[in-house]
């Protein structure tokens, strides 16, 4: 193959899409639309296409910039400031958990790792029984999953897993743990391993290359580098009357001083599970139940690194292709936290800031990067009675920060997960294994690792915790006094406000969430389009 990779976005722009860059606006802007969609990630992107297909005039408002495959240079130092919230350094209030979230046209789907799971049946059942959502059965949800899967090329990934994933698979086989391959949302994937820096070949079926171009081709408008500050409610308190926001400068960070105002018949909030509640809190429009911004979940992630005798090249190849749910099912759903095992891609910048040590110890570990493996455990928060997640708060400048207190339930899960991962790594042939914790040292046997892990102090800023799955904060439910939105994302208080993103989940998903976001956003957008058609 010769020549250059075609850039769908630049071609679309040349064909006359109505895409405006906020940084280029010299004047304040006043716009109107049938539906204004705030946030263009998994929820906002797929909803924008569905609503455009229904013949509605859609305006997408996105805080991040419009970047496309030609901009994706497989460079961490370029990708993180361009494509992530807070340069991939967003942290919880006490700085204990680093949160990865996207901030670009396409949202987190531009940088996610393509693992695609339906919402687990036990999670749906829990919502049916405990959150007043009897309509959300596996059967009722099936068509929405199928629609999203067809749209985004989600299917089995047939290539051989990369070395990093093979370690997980081998460990599971050795210990007899149930495991399987991960379906991915790709078409013609080159198996590169740079999903987290934006896909340079447009193989990843992110919102950026699927639903957003399709909506734009149908006449939808896009305003990027446009940060929504607040919504205004009409005096009767029944509906949202206006959206107000600031344009950002070319650095994507600093407001340019120019502002915009939008009037829309209907407003869709899809700014993600921190951004969406933050907009309502800034607007002074928290709901009557007091749940806006509460019960925000993270699937807090613990990590364990290992040095393998063979070459792993954990930076090459599809980042996630093997998982194990064994430890999801070793206790009741609302018991001690279950966790899902997967692996992260390992690239120099993110690896070096995440590995706890310093000095020659750290340097000698990093020098063995090609032999490095890491396992991660996603803890399923939000089911145990003491796992109540975090709360979105506002800093004095109005920017959001998540307060996610770490309690015994989390720490118990952390310890069990470090043990499980170290055991697995030695079973897979690791020479050394080490949980990512400030007080941990590389262990050379499972016995040694176990003794070390039993003794690790369990506290914030010692254990390295991360998350790429922010969920909740605008919980759907059957009872307006306990939830913020109904099962279609319709806000209980404002009739022309619908939430279509990861914030509507009343607990964590218990699996990587993108396909859940897609399916629920499709279902909610369909419901909304019908309602708007009825007038």
């Amino acid at each position, binding site marked *: 193959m010769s020549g250059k990779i075609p*850039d769908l976005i630049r071609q679309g722009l040349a064909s006359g899409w109505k895409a405006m860059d906020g940084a280029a606006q010299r004047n304040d802007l006043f716009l109107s639309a049938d539906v204004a969609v705030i946030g263009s990630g998994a929820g906002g992107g797929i909803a924008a296409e569905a609503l455009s297909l229904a013949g509605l005039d859609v305006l997408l408002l996105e805080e991040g910039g419009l970047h496309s495959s030609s901009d994706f240079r*497989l460079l961490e130092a370029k990708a993180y400031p361009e494509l992530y919230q807070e340069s991939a350094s967003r942290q919880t209030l006490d700085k204990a958990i680093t949160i990865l979230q996207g901030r670009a046209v396409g949202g987190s789907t531009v940088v996610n790792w393509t693992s695609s799971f339906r919402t687990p049946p036990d999670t749906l059942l829990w919502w049916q029984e405990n959150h007043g959502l009897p309509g959300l059965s596996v059967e009722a949800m099936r068509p929405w999953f199928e629609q999203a899967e067809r749209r985004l090329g989600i299917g089995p990934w047939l290539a051989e897993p990369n070395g990093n994933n093979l370690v997980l698979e081998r460990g599971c086989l050795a210990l007899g743990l149930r495991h399987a391959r991960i379906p991915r949302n790709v078409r013609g994937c080159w198996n590169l391993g740079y999903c987290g820096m934006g896909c340079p070949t447009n193989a990843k079926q992110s919102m950026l290359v699927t639903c957003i171009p399709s909506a734009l081709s149908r006449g939808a408008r896009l305003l990027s580098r446009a940060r929504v500050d607040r919504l205004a409610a009409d005096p009767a308190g029944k509906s949202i009357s206006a959206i107000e926001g600031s344009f950002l400068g070319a650095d994507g960070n600093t407001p340019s001083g120019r502002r915009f105002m939008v009037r829309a018949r209907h407003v869709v909030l899809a700014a993600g599970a921190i951004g969406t509640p933050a907009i309502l809190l800034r607007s002074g429009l928290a709901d009557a139940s007091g749940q806006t911004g509460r019960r925000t979940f993270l699937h807090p992630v613990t990590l364990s690194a290992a040095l393998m005798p063979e070459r792993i090249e954990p930076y090459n190849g599809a980042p996630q292709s093997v998982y194990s749910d064994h430890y999801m099912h070793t206790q009741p759903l609302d018991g001690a936290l279950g966790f899902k095992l997967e692996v992260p891609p390992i690239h120099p910048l993110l690896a070096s800031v995440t590995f706890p040590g310093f000095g020659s110890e750290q340097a000698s570990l990093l*020098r*063995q990067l090609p032999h490095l493996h890491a396992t991660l455990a996603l803890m399923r928060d939000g089911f145990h009675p003491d796992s109540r997640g975090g709360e979105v708060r506002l*800093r004095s400048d109005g920017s959001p920060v998540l307060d996610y207190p770490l309690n015994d339930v989390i720490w118990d899960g952390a310890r069990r997960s470090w043990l499980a991962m170290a055991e697995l790594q030695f079973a897979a042939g690791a020479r050394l294994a080490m949980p990512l914790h400030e007080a941990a040292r590389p262990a050379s046997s499972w016995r040694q690792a176990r003794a070390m892990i039993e003794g690790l102090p369990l506290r914030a800023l010692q254990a390295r915790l991360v998350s790429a799955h922010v969920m909740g904060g605008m919980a759907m439910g059957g009872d307006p006094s306990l939830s913020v939105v109904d099962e279609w994302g319709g806000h209980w208080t404002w009739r022309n406000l619908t939430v279509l993103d990861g914030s509507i989940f009343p607990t964590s998903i218990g699996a990587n969430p993108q396909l859940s976001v897609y399916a629920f956003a499709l279902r909610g957008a369909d419901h909304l389009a019908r309602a708007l058609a009825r007038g």
Partner: protein
Amino acid sequence: MASRRQFLKAGAFGGAALLIAGYWAAPAADPEAEAVAGLSWLRPADAQIVMALAPVLLGLAELPVAKVAQGVDQAISGLPLATQEEIRQMFDLLGNRWARRWLAGVRPPWRMAGAMESARFLQRWRESRFALQNSVYQGLHRLIHAGWYGSPASWAALGYQQPAAVMGMLP
């Protein structure tokens, strides 16, 4: 452990005498820092701290420290303004000679600080019971690692490289 033994050996009186002596003898001020080219956020005094700590933190003796400072500068510029303010406070704290001497335990100005002394400071703040000290350690760790390992100059030593086949096809 070592510091506890030393403290016990010095004895209560010895310790107090040291403290008093230390109080009267003002810690050495940092000499006027020279400007480093290509920095927009870091002040010369901040860059001095980064360049003093980088070889210790990264465990690399032969390190183009000015390049690391530029990487740190770039990393900070991409952060939200609220975080930039916190980082400002961190550098102001470390740059204050009293705080450097009595909180960080680093006697000479940063530029003259020995590797052992800097490493002891990092390790103590890393393990400290105080969240503030932990977070300063982690902040330095994060910024300096990002400042270096974000640069392709660091990759060869790791055996890391971008996939050549695709790089040639990028427009």
